[in-house]
């Protein structure tokens, strides 16, 4: 175990219990053009620093949630539900 990730449901658990999915991005509208969908599927910020990303508690409560994580230093991170991302805006 290299660090403990905070699940909004279960609290801190070994990161090996979780699956990382992807950095968070706004999904294009269904009728967006080919280029917009292509960019969404393939291109990434891949940020060296703090980014928001999707995680899944695979060996735990099976929830999907968001994490704001510093990719140079895992210990600084905040976990929250998707609905709270929407409220932030």
């Amino acid at each position: 175990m290299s660090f403990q990730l905070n699940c909004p449901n279960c609290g801190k658990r070994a990161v090996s219990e979780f699956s990382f999915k992807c950095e968070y991005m706004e999904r294009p509208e269904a009728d967006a053009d080919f280029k917009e969908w292509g960019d969404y599927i393939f291109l990434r910020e891949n940020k060296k620093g703090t980014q928001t990303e999707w995680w899944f508690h695979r060996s735990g409560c099976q929830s999907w949630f968001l994490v704001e994580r510093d990719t140079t230093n895992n210990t600084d991170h905040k976990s929250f539900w998707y609905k709270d991302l929407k409220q932030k805006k």
Partner: protein
Amino acid sequence: MTERMWNNHEMRSSYDVVIIGGGAHGLATAYYLAKNHGITNIAVIEQKFIGYGGSGRNTAILRSNYRTEEGILFYDQSLKLYEDLAQELDYNLMFSQQGHFTLGHSTASMQALTTRAAYNRALGVNSTILDPPEIKKMLPEIDISNHPRYPIMGALYHPPGGIIRHDAVVWSYARGADQRGVHIHQLTEVQDILVENGEVRGVKTNRGTIHCKQVVSCVAGWSSEICKMVGIKLPLVTHPLQALVTTDYKPWLHHVVVSSTLHIYLSQTDRGELVCGNGIDHYPHYGMRSTLGFLESYAAHLLELFPILHNVTVQRQWAGLCDMTPDYSPIISMVDDVDGFYINCGWGTWGFKGSPASGWNTAQMVAERKTPDMIAAFRHDRYVKNRLVGEKAAASVGN
């Protein structure tokens, strides 16, 4: 007085070409620009020391048994350049073409390996399928019984594959470039790239600004950050990859062994140490720490293949950054909107073997301002144009 392999120079206020990144790809590009094209007013800018990135941290496995035509031809050119490199650079690179096994543990993987063997042979690359008794003859310590969780069903065997001394490759390209007039600036970090009217004008570093008309980015795991400076978003995710080395044992393993089902690979160096690695860490990260989880999972899987290794001592472990692409093929590309900017990245966990061909073709692209046919498939925008070069089956753990 000791002879230095490369010299320190004052930084000029301008160069013809600035190469960012002092790994094998950046240094090979500088070397072939000087040697093949007579362009020598070049600076290689490295934030730490040369070989600080993946080029000084890899497990040094070379092979060309890829899956696509584009991949096979490119890595074959690279392996052939490697075969003559010690002679050309007058440096002992300890290249041992001892043969490379990719084990198959399921009918699906045997099917993929059989297809690869056929494509390889059609393009003149030596690859064959071996059955378990044939494997056992060449690797007497391997467990081919049906006791392991994933019994061995066969292997793709690639005789020209092998291992090399990776540091020596980095140092000898650096020396070869230096001898031809290239300046290598270590402890120099590129902080911005200057672009005016869609043309490259220079780079800003912590030691001052350098003017130039051509910039080549060869920064592997750091590429997203550099390309952002000119407004380009890449299809990359940076993941750490870990490796370990044991103490030395008498020679017993005479070929490189890879199992993608078990996520492991190993080889034995001339000194007798076992060099071992597995798959990337499962989440992106820009740090280079090694973990106990890696050591545990590696050991468990290794013992399934080679039970005699239950008592080996691990000497050290480390990690390096890998710039993973969605199709497991590299990016070597000009850029439509920024004249004079070139991208060389997407080397993931597999790119050290590509350094000579990458340097050769990148140099040609920079010198002629035109993409050579050999790398035409590796453009940065192929993803959004739906022209992927799928090498996952051949590159994900195989290294």
